[in-house]
């Protein structure tokens, strides 16, 4: 009996003691995560009690916040636009399913390879004048016709007589339902929210609308429109410019006279719309590096393209932290423009936003989504409903912001014809405009740089507390530079990050002081001096976003819901929340910087409004503030910006991490370097770090094609050392692993890029599949053959996967 009890006691005690002695094997406490422990059971799915883990669950993360689904059952315009299925009763009818016959030969779209350009040809079946069109204004380049009854207009390019219409001919719209017919016939559409946040569209041709009132001037007309469903009135001005026309909606003209809230205005939703493949051509959208959407037969697409110019505004829409870390986010719209080419090389327009771009969206739809038309237009945001959380639990309600965005809208449509009527022409027009405005300036001739970004130090988790992890010392960085120089790199630019006390994730934003654990001040001066003989020695830092220890708590920006703007990164080992600084703080910090070269990671690509009570800074004000402070900084220092949006172009000398791809929607038929073409000859443009790329030959060729210089992000120690720091996304950073590649890539791109330093691209053509021909304004012609076989063009044979330099043959 007693033995039995003893045994039982033994067993019990062992069971109790085991966790103490051997708990490390049973792991749960080894890296205890209080956050997870405290989550309610519904928030994290219980991991299955299997011995083998499920990677899938680990990666799935939790769902995106429920904010956007806050009004179930009601048609939510935002969701519809995003492409989530519209709930029953939505205002739009689904299009008839597209029937595609089975071909005898399966044709694949090569999504990475380059497709040859369409042959240049006159377009015959464009818009036609009708009896009701009346000429109301004209100049040397453009004629403007108005059809008052239909409330539509057409513009004629005098140089070739081609017409662009604000709406397709009515007989082409018969296949559409009433709503889409209205949409296609409108020059402006209003969208509004009701008190519960439900969005709906309103049209001025509704039965109960007051008739449009036209007023004419010497250079155009204005029309006062009434949108009864939105209870909004506004006036649209259309006036000719030297090379096209401008359409504007002054904020003063907008009258909201009811219980509805104006949320968006769509401008010229069907201007130049092309039906199926009846007109050859394409839409250009500034998605990432740039994308073309060729006019093809209607195909089976799920949703249209929609994107906000200059990225999301975290001040009005919270970033959804870990919605999905597995798919790369869409690339941003870096430029406030889009374009459409009919022909191509026949007629085209470039639509430029000159006012209101901080609130601009671009929507572009291929044929097959809702209608059989390819179309592109700008939409402007006046109010966005948002999810107002009501405490720490996930409860929230849908709220409408008390204030409307104050913006005058002006879109300028520039007509292009002939050789210019393509995206190269659009890029040239836009670049010239920025040069004329003093925002861009032609660059001096200089050596081809290789950018070496070096991570110096980081903070890591130790057994007790945190400790400094030096990844590269100044001396080692000097060694990198010397190695590259000795290997034949003519100009090395360096950008040191994590250089101040605390390292990358813990140093104060904008702190220019070096951590002396990296080496002496003399070592830094020596590095800076040796680099700046030909290149630039940047210090690289974030300025707007930072982890807890990095930001100044007095200068944080607020979301419209009253809370701080934050970005949760619950999976980072050390710091799990990023906060955002407000405009005032950024201005002060930048103003205090010395005149040394500086590379700013976020200010050029992070634009958020700030909603602190009594000190609201709308997105437009923040944008102008950033542009101004960058310009001032640039007056006294060399400035490099990361993936800069157009508003920051005036305050920089170099663009780092230029987008090398777009969002890769299947209707984006061609990836083009539109962004790089705009900047070509006006700034040093660097690629995303090549040592995290896919290592294909295509990457090096792209450097030449896109006219960007190579960049690497390296450390002295191996990336494995960073695993207990917040920088978990470097996996291949050891300099010695990559030095041979750097030299090889530099060798490969040097000659062609040297020939076009300081020059701007004036034409980019793809005469054959996978073969690019670039024309520069200094007369240099470059051929880049992406294919694995030799190609012959203009009497030249271009070897596989290589680039050849040629001088333009005099015509």
């Amino acid at each position, binding site marked *: 009996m007693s033995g039995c009890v003893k045994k039982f*006691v033994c067993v019990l005690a062992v069971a109790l003691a085991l966790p103490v002695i051997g708990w490390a094997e049973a792991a749960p406490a080894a890296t205890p995560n209080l956050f997870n422990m405290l989550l309610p059971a519904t928030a994290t799915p219980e991991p299955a009690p299997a011995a083998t883990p499920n990677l*899938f669950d680990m990666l799935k993360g939790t769902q995106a916040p429920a904010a956007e689904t806050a009004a179930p059952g009601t048609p939510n315009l935002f969701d519809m636009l995003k492409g989530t*299925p519209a709930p029953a009763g939505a205002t739009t009818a689904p299009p008839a399913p597209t029937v595609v016959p089975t071909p005898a030969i399966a044709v694949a779209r090569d*999504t990475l390879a380059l497709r040859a350009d369409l042959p240049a040809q006159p377009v015959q079946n464009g818009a036609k004048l009708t009896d009701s069109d009346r000429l109301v204004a004209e100049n040397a380049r453009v004629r403007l016709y108005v059809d008052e009854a239909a409330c539509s207009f057409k513009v004629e390019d005098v140089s070739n007589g081609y017409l662009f219409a604000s709406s397709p001919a009515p007989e082409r719209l018969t296949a559409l339902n009433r709503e889409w017919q209205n949409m296609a016939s409108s020059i402006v559409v209003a969208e509004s929210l009701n008190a519960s946040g439900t969005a709906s569209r309103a049209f001025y041709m509704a039965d109960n609308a007051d008739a449009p009132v036209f007023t004419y001037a010497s250079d155009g007309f204005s029309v006062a429109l009434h949108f009864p469903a939105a209870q909004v009135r506004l006036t649209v001005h259309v006036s000719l410019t030297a090379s096209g026309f401008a359409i504007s909606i002054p904020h003063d003209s907008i009258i909201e006279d009811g219980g509805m809230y104006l949320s968006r205005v769509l401008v010229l939703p069907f201007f130049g719309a092309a039906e199926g493949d009846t007109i050859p051509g394409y839409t250009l959208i500034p998605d990432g590096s740039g994308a073309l959407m060729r006019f093809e037969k209607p195909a089976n697409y*799920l949703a249209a393209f929609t994107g906000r110019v200059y990225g999301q505004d975290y001040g009005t829409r919270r970033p959804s932290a870990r919605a999905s870390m597995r798919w790369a986010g869409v690339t941003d719209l870096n430029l406030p423009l889009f374009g459409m080419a009919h022909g191509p090389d026949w007629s085209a327009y470039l639509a430029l936003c000159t006012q209101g771009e901080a609130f601009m969206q671009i929507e572009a739809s291929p044929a097959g989504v809702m209608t059989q038309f390819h179309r592109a237009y700008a939409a402007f945001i006046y109010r966005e409903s948002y999810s107002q959380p009501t405490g720490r639990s996930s409860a929230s309600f849908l709220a409408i912001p008390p204030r409307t965005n104050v913006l005058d809208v002006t879109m300028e449509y520039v007509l292009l014809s002939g050789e210019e009527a393509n995206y190269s022409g659009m890029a040239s027009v836009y670049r010239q405009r920025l040069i004329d405005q003093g925002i861009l300036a032609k660059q001096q001739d200089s050596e081809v740089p290789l950018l070496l970004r070096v991570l110096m130090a980081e903070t890591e988790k130790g057994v007790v507390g945190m400790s400094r992890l030096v990844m590269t010392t100044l001396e080692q960085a000097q060694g990198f530079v010397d190695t590259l120089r000795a290997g034949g790199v003519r100009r090395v630019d360096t950008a040191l990050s994590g250089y101040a006390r605390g390292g990358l994730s813990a140093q104060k934003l904008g702190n220019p002081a070096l951590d002396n654990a990296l080496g002496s001040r003399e070592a830094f001066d020596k590095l800076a001096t040796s680099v700046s003989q030909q290149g630039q020695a940047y210090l690289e830092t974030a300025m707007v976003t930072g982890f807890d220890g990095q930001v100044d708590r007095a200068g944080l920006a607020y979301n419209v819901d009253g809370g701080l703007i934050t970005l949760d990164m619950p999976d980072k080992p050390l710091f799990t929340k990023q906060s955002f600084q407000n405009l005032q703080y950024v201005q002060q910090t930048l103003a205090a910087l010395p005149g040394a070269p500086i590379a700013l990671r976020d200010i050029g690509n992070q634009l958020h409004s700030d909603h602190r009570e009594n000190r609201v800074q709308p997105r437009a004000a923040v944008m102008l503030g950033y542009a101004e402070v960058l310009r001032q900084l640039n007056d006294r220092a060399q400035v490099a910006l990361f993936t800069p949006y157009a508003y920051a172009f005036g305050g920089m000398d170099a663009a780092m991490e230029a987008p090398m791809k777009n969002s*890769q929607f299947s209707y984006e038929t061609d990836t083009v370097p539109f962004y790089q073409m705009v900047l070509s000859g006006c700034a040093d443009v660097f690629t995303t770090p090549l040592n995290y*790329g896919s290592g294909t030959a295509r990457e090096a060729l792209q450097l030449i094609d896109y006219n960007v210089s190579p960049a690497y992000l390296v450390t002295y120690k191996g990336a494995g050392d960073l*695993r207990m720091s917040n920088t*978990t996304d470097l996996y291949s950073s050891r300099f010695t692993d990559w030095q041979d590649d750097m030299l090889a890539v530099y060798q490969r791109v040097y000659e062609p890029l040297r020939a076009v330093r300081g020059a701007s691209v004036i034409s980019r053509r793809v005469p054959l599949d996978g073969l690019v021909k670039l024309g520069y304004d200094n007369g240099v012609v470059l051929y880049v053959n992406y294919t694995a076989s030799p190609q012959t063009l203009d009497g030249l044979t271009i070897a596989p996967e290589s680039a050849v330099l040629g001088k333009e043959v005099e015509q």
Partner: protein
Amino acid sequence: MFKRAAALLLALLVLAPVSVLAAQTASTGYTINIGVDGRPQLTQDAYLPTRLFMDLGLRGPKDLFIKDDILYVADSGNGRVLRIPLDTLEVEIIGAGLLRNPTGVAADEDGRIYVADYTARKAYRFARDGSLEMTFEKPEAASFGRNSSYIPLKVAPGDGGGLYLVNEGSVAGIVQMSGEGDFLGYFAANTVTMSLSDLLRSIFLTEEQQRFSMARTPPAFANIFRGDDRLIYTINRGENVAIKKHAISGANLLDDANARILLDNPVDLAVAPDGRMLAVYTDGTVGEYTADGYFICLFAGPGNRTDRIGLFDAPAGIGVDSRNNIYVLDERRQAIQVFAPTPAQDSLYRAMTHYNNGAYDDSIASLEQVVKYNDTSYLAHLLLGRNYLQKNDYHAAEKEFRTAGDRAYFSQAYWETRNLWLQNNTGWILAVVLVVFLVWLGLGVIRRFRPGFLTRKGNAERSQPRLVHDLLQVGYAVRHPIDNYYNVRVGLTGSALAATVLYVLAFVLLVLFQVARGFIFSVDVSRYSLFYTAVYFFGILALFLAGNFFISSINDGDGTFRQIYIGSAYALAPVFLILPPVILLSNVLSLDESFFVQAAMVFMLAWTLVTVYLMVMQIHDYSFKEGTASLLMTLFFMVVAILVGSLVFLLLKQVVVFVQDAVTEVVLRVRLR
């Protein structure tokens, strides 16, 4: 390996959606592999979406199959199968007019095509030229089951024109049929796994209740594939399933594969000619595994109803061609996406092929390319280590396995290096042993003439400070525990200070036990938390002391809290005796000898229990029975205290959240209206 699995479970997510520095991809989805720390990590693109077949006129296609570089698509909505050789891309239509809703398609090495027709409830075999050869009707055989349904869903070729069918709604296994349509039997039936709660229910519930409450049906098959190795691969439906590779007997050859990652709702699988396994999941993710079940990477992902290439909304089938291109069929987009491997991924394949062919140097050269692209890949370092192991370069292997964090393989390599060391140093070792023995002999001889030579006897009389005395009494506690506790009780031995020092010492030993036992036995220091170890150790200690004091106070125990405090410290005596040598020994043991460590630990725990028990009896002057009861009640107290503590904590938290929410909501409603 268990540690690795547990660590993975813990890892949940290490990656954030927004990169601070470098995360980038030329694709639309990031590629993820397992890092040397055992966690999922971002890595360079393994595949890039290169081509997209959008214009095939498909309607609701349900399956895709590739064999000998011929692509087959079950174009279900159009009631036909498309056969597309990948070199010419000529589209050939098969079974039009006959097929009603083909949901599965496969082909054999002779080019014969097998189709499962869900609606027609038949399976078909077509000749290479597309003519119908054989219709597989519902088997008449009694062994099939007269009442069993026959709904062919997915198909794989059998031998001699026969086939394997995934039969919708059948739980008996894969239906195997001969080339003549005869039922050959069920293959590889899934079994019902019994969880602990199932077991308990089966004990306590009546048969009636069990029928009602316990699902006894095994999981259903989701898909089937026959590899070039002629083996059958299957996946089940549902969450946490693994790819199974069946021997002729139906047994799963991958059952004990290490480092396996389970899949959630896989839709289809394919096996590359070199044995790599691929699976696509409902959400659009594609997972790739080595032939022996190791995880290579995840890529692609959910399309979220956008048209981004390389992401999927309703993936239905996957296939791989001879150039390692991966084809994924999307039912909703009615399109086929092609992925091509990047140079780094190609290097990995080459390395695996070289390894299998015994070309270890070539394999190592390829792997060094892989490592250049991703220094922290578990798989790359593991494969490097295995190569070195095969080359008998044990030191290099040891280094790689240590980098990979793979203790089992490290132990293998370590055993070899230790063996070599022992062989090389046998002379020295024997010499040292001999010298020690001689010295011992010599001492004995000397002491015979000069008693007390070099012993501590001479110092014994010197008086010691109390603290030192108390600490040294641990030795006495080991030999004479009962006497020692008596001394404690009467105040001859022990002080609060000494006990505290002992507790701290025990804690230090515990920490060393966890972090200083050599690579094979220690926990990963980088994710070790001293703080939580301290909380656990001192928390449990405090609970025990308090519990024992309270329990004994109401049970006529004589001991004061001070006595319990001091006595418990001495009860840890076995820990001081056994842990240090175990820690030292663990540094030179391989996993094969881990038995010694475990045995020592069990012995230590048992001994400690005995000393604790003796302590309770002595300090409180309990009889055997009282002591037992007191200890059990102390344990009960500890459990209850933990439960109550957590309950109170949770309730308080709820209250705080509720009040906060209510106040915020009121304030907001007022502000916004």
